[in-house]
C-alpha cells in the first residue's frame, strides 16, 4: 500500500516534468525561430523556416544593424528609459511619502486622484496631449521623458504610499531631532528603507517604457531620432509594401530585443520579485 502511494507520486511528478518541459519548449519556440532565421536569406527562410542556416553569415544581421540605426536608436531608448525612471522614482517617492505622513484633505484628494487616474486609458488623452506638447515645443525626446514620467506616477505613488505606511516614523523623528533637513531625512534615512518598492517601481515602469510603441510613434513619428521599437516598426512598414522582408525583420527583431533579454537574465531575480510584489501591494 505504502509502496503504491510512493509509486503514484513518482509517476505524477514525471508527468509534471514532461508537461512543463513541453510547455517550456513551446514558449521558447518563437525565440528559436527568431535565432535560426536571423542568419538566412529570404528564400531560405520561406523554404526552410525550421532548419538551421545552410551557410552561417552575419550579412543580414549587419544589414539590419545599419537599417535600424542600431547604436543611435539604442542610445535614445536607453536615455528615455533611464531619465523617465529616475524622475518617476524621485517624484513619486517624495509625493508618496508626503501624502502618507501629512494627513489632510489635500493629501487625501491627491491620493484618490492618482489612484483613480489609473483607470484612464492612454487613448483618452493622447490627441489633446499631443496637441499640448506640440504647442509648448515638447514633441521630442525630452517631451517623451516628461510624458513617461507623468504616466508612470499613478501606479508608483500608489505603491510607495502603500509601503510608507508600514515604515515607522521614529527614524524620521530621530533624524529631525539631530538636525537633518527634510531632504537629508528623506534620502539618507527613509529612501533606503523602501528599496524593495523602488525595485518594483523600476521594473514595472521600465518594462513598458522600453517596449512602448504608441507614444514614440505619436511624438517622434518620422523624425530622425527614433527609439528601437519605432525603428523596427518603420523597417517593417516601409519595406513591407513589397511583401514581408523577413530577411530584414528577423535580424532586426533579434538585435532590438537582445538588450532586454540580457538585462532580464542578469536581473531576473528582481523581475520576479518586482512583479509579484507589485501585484500583492495593489
Amino acid at each position, binding site marked *: 500500500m505504502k509502496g503504491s502511494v510512493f509509486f503514484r507520486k513518482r509517476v505524477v511528478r514525471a508527468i509534471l516534468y514532461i508537461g512543463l518541459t513541453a510547455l517550456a519548449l513551446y514558449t521558447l519556440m*518563437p525565440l528559436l525561430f527568431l535565432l535560426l532565421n536571423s542568419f538566412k536569406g529570404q528564400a531560405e527562410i520561406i523554404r526552410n523556416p525550421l532548419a538551421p542556416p545552410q551557410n552561417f553569415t552575419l550579412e543580414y544581421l549587419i544589414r539590419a544593424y545599419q537599417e535600424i540605426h542600431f547604436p543611435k536608436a539604442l542610445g535614445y531608448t536607453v536615455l528615455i528609459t533611464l531619465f523617465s525612471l529616475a524622475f518617476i522614482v524621485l517624484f513619486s517617492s517624495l509625493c508618496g511619502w508626503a501624502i502618507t505622513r501629512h494627513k489632510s484633505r489635500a493629501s487625501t484628494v*491627491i491620493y484618490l486622484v492618482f489612484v483613480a487616474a489609473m483607470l*484612464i*486609458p492612454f487613448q483618452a488623452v493622447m490627441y489633446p496631449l499631443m*496637441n499640448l506638447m506640440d504647442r509648448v515645443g515638447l514633441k521630442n525626446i525630452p517631451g517623451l521623458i*516628461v510624458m513617461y514620467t507623468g504616466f508612470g506616477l499613478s501606479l508608483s505613488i500608489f505603491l510607495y504610499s502603500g509601503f510608507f505606511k508600514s515604515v515607522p516614523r521614529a527614524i524620521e523623528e530621530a533624524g529631525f531631532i539631530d538636525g537633518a533637513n527634510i531632504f537629508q531625512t528623506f534620502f539618507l534615512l527613509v529612501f533606503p528603507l523602501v528599496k524593495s518598492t523602488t525595485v518594483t517601481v523600476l521594473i514595472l515602469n521600465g518594462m513598458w517604457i522600453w517596449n512602448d510603441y*504608441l507614444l514614440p510613434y505619436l511624438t517622434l513619428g518620422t523624425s530622425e531620432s527614433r527609439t528601437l521599437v519605432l525603428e523596427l516598426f518603420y523597417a517593417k512598414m516601409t519595406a513591407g509594401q513589397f511583401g514581408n522582408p523577413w530577411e530584414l525583420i528577423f535580424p532586426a527583431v533579434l538585435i532590438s530585443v537582445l538588450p532586454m533579454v540580457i538585462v532580464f537574465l542578469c536581473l531576473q531575480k528582481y523581475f520576479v520579485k518586482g512583479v509579484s510584489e507589485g501585484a500583492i501591494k495593489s
Partner: protein
Amino acid sequence: MERYYKKWFYLLVLPAVLLFVFVIGLPFVIGTIYSFTSWRGTYFAGGTLSESFVGLENYIQAFSDEQFIHSMIYTTAYTLVAVVAINIVALSFALMLGRIKRGVGLYRTVFFLPNMLGGLAMGFIWQFIFQVVYTDLLFSPDGLFHVEFLRFMTQDTTKALFALVIMTVWQSAGYMMLIYISGLNSIPGELYEAAEIDGAGPIRKFFTVTLPLLMPSITIVLFLTLANSFKLLDQNIALTNGDFNTRLMALQILRTIQDKTPPNYGVAQAQAVVFFVIVAVISLFQVSLTRRKEVEY
C-alpha cells in the same frame, strides 16, 4: 513633527502634481470638452472653440459608424476569450510549478521571458509563424496535421481573433503566473492538512481550499488581464494591422483620424471618451464583484 511635514508638504508633492496635471489631468479635461466640438486637430471647423460646440453630434457619429461598433464587439469578444485563456494557462503553470521542487526557477524564467520582449517585435515574429509555419508547414494538407482553421489566421476576422489570443496567452501567461504563484504560497499549509484529515481528495482540496483563498490573486489577475486585453494595441498592429476587419478599439481610435480627410479629431475624441467609460466601468465592476467573493481566514 506634524508641523514639519505640513510645512514641506506642498513642496514635496508639487513636481508629481504638476506633471500629472500637465500630462493627464489637463489633456483629459480638454479631451472631454473637445469631444463635443468640431475639433480638427489643429483648428476648429466652426471658428473658435466656443463657436464649435456640436452637442452630441460626434457621439452620434461614433455610434453610427459601423467600424467603431464592430471594433467594440471585436474587442469584447477578444477580451472574453483572452481573459479566460490567460487565466487558465497562468493558473495551470502556477499549480504545476507548485508541485515540483527542482528546476522551478528555470521554468519560471522561461515562462516569464516572452513578457519582456515587446508586443510589436514579437508580433512580427508571430505573424511569420501564422503566415508561414502554421499555414505552409504544420497545419497544411501535407503537413503534420491538417487543420484548416489554423491556416491563414491573419487573413480572416474570426481566425485573427484567435491568433491574437494565441499570441497574448504566450506573452502574458508567465506574468500572471507569477501573481498566482505568490498567491498560492500565501495559503497556509495547515489548511491542506486539515482538509486531508477530513478526507478531501485533490480535486475537493482545490475547490474548497485553494480556489477560495486564491480570490485576492484572482481579483488582481482579472483586473490586469481585463484592462490589458481591452487596451491591446501593439500585437494588433503587428499581426494584422487592422486589416480584414480586425481592428480592436485602441487601433480604431488611432485610425479614425486617418480614415477621412480632413481628419475628424472630434469624432476620434468622442470614441476615446467612450473607450475610457467602458474601461473604467468594467474595471470598477469587476473589482467590486470579485472583492465580494474574497474570504478571510
